[in-house]
């Protein structure tokens, strides 16, 4: 080996090699640079969300109305409590992660194991909570009517409280059937039909005098505009073309289709990060138990996955603000 080394006379000097100006190991530095590039990806998503939000600044859905579910409290309006809980879980799992890193510096294998375990549990609870949020979001609660122009009309009673379509809809004889493959030669599959037809909604609306239409436009008080009874009937009869319940990528009952698209993409991309973070944490957890890092004499791997895990928390702090608060 010694014979192959070329001496340049610069050993020990700045350009002689072997010094590391950033004083970080290769792996840790690369984790940081990965985090920077990933942060820019998330920023791209959030900036695009901001763009669409500014574009529809007078008609964007109010997050408090959309995310108001809490487990075991059906029909109770609980805006944001659940997301706050999720945020808290993620922050706490960040704390246990940093405690694991700290214990690793002192080569305390038992403590690292315990804290890594708690971190994994926290991550799993978070991913589960997100799945539950998605379920509520996709299922929807009140339902709405779509218009020619691609807008959403929601229903309220005289006091401005939201009314579900199911509460006033008329029961008309079924006229529309979802076609299946076996009913046509070239036919593959029909789209899923909404539970009620627009005719049923119109008939039910006409029969219930106290139901009004709420458009998605904000009035000067920052509330959604509620139309008078006459305007409501007029609007429903001239513009309404379909019924939407819940959300998918093409339409949703909350507002512009982009709202649901961004919800799925941003929280989905973040959820994917949490999920992969949990997987990586599990791998490192087993390595800790097996004593890999004990033998290696350094728990730096725990520190590296810790960086990733904190980054996931960091992103959530921003997603929480821009999706649920602002």
């Amino acid at each position, binding site marked *: 080996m010694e014979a192959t080394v070329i001496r340049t006379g610069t050993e020990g000097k700045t350009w002689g090699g072997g010094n590391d100006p950033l004083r970080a190991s290769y792996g840790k530095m690369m984790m940081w640079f990965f985090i920077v590039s990933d942060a820019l990806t998330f920023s791209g998503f959030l900036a695009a969300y901001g763009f669409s939000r*500014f574009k529809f*600044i007078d008609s964007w859905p109010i997050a408090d109305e959309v995310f108001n579910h809490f487990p075991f409290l059906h029909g109770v309006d609980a805006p944001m409590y659940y997301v706050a809980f999720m945020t808290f879980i993620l922050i706490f799992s960040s704390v246990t992660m940093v405690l694991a890193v700290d214990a690793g510096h002192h080569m305390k294998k038992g403590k690292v194991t315990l804290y890594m375990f708690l971190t994994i549990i926290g991550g799993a609870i978070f991913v589960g909570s997100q799945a539950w949020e998605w379920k509520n979001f996709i299922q929807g609660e009140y339902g709405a009517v779509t218009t020619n122009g691609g807008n959403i009309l929601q229903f309220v009673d005289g006091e401005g409280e939201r009314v579900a379509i199911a509460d006033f809809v008329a029961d008309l004889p079924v006229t529309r059937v979802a076609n299946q493959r076996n009913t046509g030669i070239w036919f593959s599959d029909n789209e899923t039909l909404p539970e009620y037809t627009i005719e049923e909604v119109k008939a039910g609306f006409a029969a219930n005098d106290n139901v009004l239409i709420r458009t998605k436009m904000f009035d000067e008080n920052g509330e959604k505009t509620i139309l008078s009874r006459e305007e409501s009937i007029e609007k429903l009869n001239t513009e309404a073309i379909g019924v939407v319940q819940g959300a998918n990528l093409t339409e949703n009952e909350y507002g512009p289709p982009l709202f649901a698209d961004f919800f799925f993409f941003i929280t989905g991309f973040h959820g994917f990060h949490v999920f992969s973070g949990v997987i990586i944490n599990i791998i490192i957890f087993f390595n800790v138990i097996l004593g890999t890092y004990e033998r290696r004499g350094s728990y730096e791997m725990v520190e590296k996955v810790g960086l990733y895990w904190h980054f996931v928390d960091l992103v959530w702090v921003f997603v*929480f603000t821009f999706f649920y608060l602002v």
Partner: protein
Amino acid sequence: MAHSTTHKHESNTKRIWFVFALLSVVTAVEVFLGIVKPDFLVDTTFLAMKLLNWIFIILTLYKAYYIAWAFMHLEGESTGLRRAVVWTALFLICYLMFILLTEGDYIFDVYKNNHVAWDF
């Protein structure tokens, strides 16, 4: 590796719990403000944005600072690495936000004031 062997790490547990308490309190304040939405914060605007939203964003950056500095231990990294990470992200994100939000606002104005039919 050199990092963990050359100098001793004193335990940071106290600081970790302090930062945890801080982050929890800030989150609680955010949620409280988000639910109550005090009128004077909603009605007052500064630079075309509600005061309430300014508070949310500033508190978010405050939390992000603590997560990055204390949890991700940026405060202990060399100045070069810290700047390579923070400045790069910060400048690019500010630029991106400025361009896209300005453009979004412009398109909103076009839809609102010009003769572009979008609701038919």
